[in-house]
């Protein structure tokens, strides 16, 4: 089965570890940083849009805590590579499971979004939206891994 849109299998392990660390980071960061902003990484960054006081400005430099940005980038990049790197034997059945999992992930991710649109209002909605960015990746990885695991189980029972 030839696919040119997947990463090599050798990327799987390292990206998986990085993804796990970033997930832990995303969960722990708001808890650790709750009141006293323990983790701060101030830097001057170029921005297309940014707020200064109450005004929104365009195209300029701004000073911001970039730790959440770095965490977000790390989660997305490692998550994408982990999700879309080849299995040891990447055959057509794996491809089918991959496609199905992607459809499931899209459904579930938008189901969560719909739920939030209907039932969550105000600023909490936007807070939850920032997490919702990761649902599609997260659900895909969970569903795909679970199906592969189940496949392995049925195999070990036979022959």
């Amino acid at each position: 089965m030839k696919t040119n849109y997947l990463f090599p299998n050798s990327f799987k392990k390292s990206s998986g570890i990085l993804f796990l660390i970033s997930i832990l980071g995303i969960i722990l960061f708001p808890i650790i940083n709750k009141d006293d902003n323990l983790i701060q990484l101030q830097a001057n960054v170029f921005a297309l849009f940014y707020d200064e006081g109450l005004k929104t400005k365009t195209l300029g430099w701004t000073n911001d805590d970039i730790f959440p940005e770095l965490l977000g980038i790390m989660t997305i990049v490692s998550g994408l590579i982990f999700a879309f790197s080849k299995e040891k034997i990447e055959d057509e059945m794996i491809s089918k499971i991959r496609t199905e999992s992607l459809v499931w992930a899209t459904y579930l991710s938008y189901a969560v979004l719909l739920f939030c649109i209907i039932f969550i209002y105000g600023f909490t909605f936007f807070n939850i939206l920032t997490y919702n960015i990761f649902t599609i990746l997260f659900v895909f990885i969970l569903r795909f891994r679970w199906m592969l695991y189940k496949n392995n189980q049925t195999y070990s029972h036979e022959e």
Partner: protein
Amino acid sequence: MKNNVKIQRAIANITQAQLAEKIGVSRQTINAIEAGKYVPSTVLALKISKLFDKPVNEIFELESTD
């Protein structure tokens, strides 16, 4: 779709793992095909038929539900 890959495999006296390796898929895929849980692509069906030296129709068969 029905298939008799398991029988063909028994005739040829090879294991699921050996068959998998010969046609370049995972053992789980062979297992799923034999269990009727996965319908192989035309390419894979042709590879299996070539390996067992039997026409595809003798290995794979349509069912009334197909």
